């Protein structure tokens, strides 16, 4: 379902919801995402009390526990600014599942509905709201891209990452086989069914590598840790990077705030 962006204006301020994975495991990606936003002249606010969107509990069938965690996040964004999430699946959780999670409480449901409307995945926000037009910097690069299933099916944002990379001019995006297929992370699935998960992660790592790209990119922390962790365990030199970091390090910095 295509989201309607016609009523979304370019804001001066945004909230940044880092997600627990980015906060603890790949903070540099969060930092790079914030810097990219600031480079566009936007003030980025990081609510100190943010923790996790609650997705691990929600998808495991522990709705009460997910609600307890989600309720805290609902109170973090008092102003009517967009909330930017550097991860498709966490963005999808807030956008699509929060309203369901709070269906039994009118006041919280209203809050969840309102929040749902102004949550954007990072690349979606760059392309659809800020309508950026970036130029690549440095040498020509060949990359492969893994878009998370949530980004693809819940947020419809798999095309946005593609579009951003396409703008750069010096980046060649190589398509891998079974591109739309899941990498096998699935949150607690990776621990519950390690054999199946490992098979899927291995296949995805192979497919990305077989493109002949120098590295692969993903805008989703969970997928990134899964695929990159698999390659690291193999001691492969082909590795992954968060899309935000790649964009920060490979785009021209004109217009950067002093």
């Amino acid at each position: 379902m295509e989201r309607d962006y016609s009523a979304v204006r370019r804001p001066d301020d945004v909230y940044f919801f880092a997600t627990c994975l980015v906060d603890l495991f790949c903070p540099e990606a969060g930092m790079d995402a914030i810097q990219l936003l600031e480079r566009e002249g936007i003030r980025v606010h990081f609510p100190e009390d943010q923790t996790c969107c609650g997705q691990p509990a929600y998808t495991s069938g522990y709705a009460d526990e997910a609600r307890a965690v989600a309720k805290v996040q609902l109170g973090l964004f008092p102003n009517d600014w967009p909330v930017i999430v550097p991860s498709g699946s966490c963005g999808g959780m807030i956008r699509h599942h929060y309203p369901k999670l709070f269906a039994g409480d009118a006041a919280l449901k209203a809050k969840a509905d309102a929040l749902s409307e102004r949550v954007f995945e990072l690349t979606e926000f760059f392309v659809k709201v800020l309508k950026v037009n970036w130029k690549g910097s440095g040498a020509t690069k060949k990359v492969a891209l893994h878009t998370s299933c949530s980004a693809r099916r819940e947020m419809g944002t798999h095309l946005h990452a593609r579009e951003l990379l396409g703008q750069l001019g010096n980046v060649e995006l190589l398509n891998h086989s079974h591109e739309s297929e899941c990498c096998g992370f699935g949150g607690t699935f990776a621990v519950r069914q390690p054999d199946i998960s490992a098979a899927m992660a291995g296949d995805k790592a192979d497919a990305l590598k077989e493109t002949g790209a120098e590295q692969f990119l993903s805008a989703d922390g969970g997928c990134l840790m899964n695929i990159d962790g698999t390659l690291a365990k193999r001691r492969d030199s082909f590795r992954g990077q968060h899309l935000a970091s790649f964009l920060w390090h490979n785009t021209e910095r004109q217009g950067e705030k002093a």
Partner: protein
Amino acid sequence: MSNNTTHTLQFVPGTEFKRRAAEVVANPFLRKSFRGAMDFLMMKRAAQFPDPELLERQRDLAEHIRRYSLSKLPQLLEQLEANLTRNGVTVHWAETPDEANAIILDICRRHDTKLMVKGKSMVSEEVELNHAMHAAGIDALESDMGEYIVQLADEKPSHIIMPAIHKTKQQIAELFAAKVPGVSYTEDVDALIQIGRDVLRKKFMEAEVGLSGVNFAVAETGTLCLVENEGNGRMCTTVPNVHIAITGIEKVVEKLEHVVPLYGLLTRSATGQAITTYFNVITGPRREGEKDGPKEMHLVLVDNGRTQAFADEQLRQTLQCIRCGACMNHCPVYTRIGGHAYGTTYPGPIGKIVSPHMMGLAATHVLPGASTLCGACGEVCPVKIPIPDLLIRLREEATHDAKPGHAPLVGQGAGKTAFASFAFKGFAFLYSRPALYRLFTWTATRFRFLTPAKQAGWTDTRTPLTPAAKSLRDLLAERQNRR
């Protein structure tokens, strides 16, 4: 030929699913063969739906028809029974597999038959009809080529549309040479099919009873529609003197015109065909003056847990299914492990949401959890069943007692473990207390050298998840101080 399925796979403990899945995952030959087969089926389906907007409209319509039909299921079933009866068909109701088998056995005994030829029917697999017939001394012979192969091998179907998809032509050649009298080894596919056809042709003529499934039962006219490619369905439903159809109670639609959009999506989604070779529209047994058709006709309507799904508004969506199998063709988990690992009649995503109603959560609670929730199944489902949402719902039912005012599902809470309850309570405690969470990240980053090198399941094939030296909030605080 004693080739009936004699083992039952009613109970599948979680450890068993894991073991079976691990076996297939570790078998490069099976992995490659499933991948190839699923790729082929996905490609065939995609070729039938070149226009995504048109497909969306078709799916919307199909979903609407299925939801509408289910919204008046009790009335439609009564109407179906009345019209079938008027057409000369005897309607039977079976709440359990045992009841269904007893009804069919009773009909067979009245006709004193030792042989039943069967068209493809997943509901007959679901009630383990062959097993029950065999126990009563009746040979129930599968006549769909895939089902025939699986039966010869004493196995179960590994896919609801392509039962023998796990077998190569070499394996089938060996099987035929070993099990079919007078046959020598050949890998020629046409020759193999001809061997099967020769065996079956004789049996169609010998059998007193023919059994078939039903794809759509039309209430308004009392009509049973049967979709097939091999003509064996037509043989089973026209040659023997008695035709018994068996199906689930959810298969009913109100009007004949409701069949058309569903049929168009069924065949395109299943095998990438715009239409099947045969489409049988059966409205009663042979009438006076007609030259063929059965003299007697029965329909067995099976519940087997369907009313449990029907009783709940969300779970009812499970019953929208028209059994095309597209969800399994597109499922990355099914593609890795094939159908047998599930241990259920219906494998793949649809199996994960329908089996708990048929077999209870005690036997099946692991299955809803064995999914990444990637959403590929829901995306291709022609009747738009929100499979990922239903998986989450069943995960909840499997790990919790029934909510007040809700009747418990069979096996409610069977997947509850003290460890998981404790872990998610801990998760909620930590992540709903921002100050505590900050303390946690502070500690986790400072003491990252204490991160365990072995992390259950994860580190077998991946490097350990290790916190960064500084969390994002630390980095932001440092930046703030520098300014």
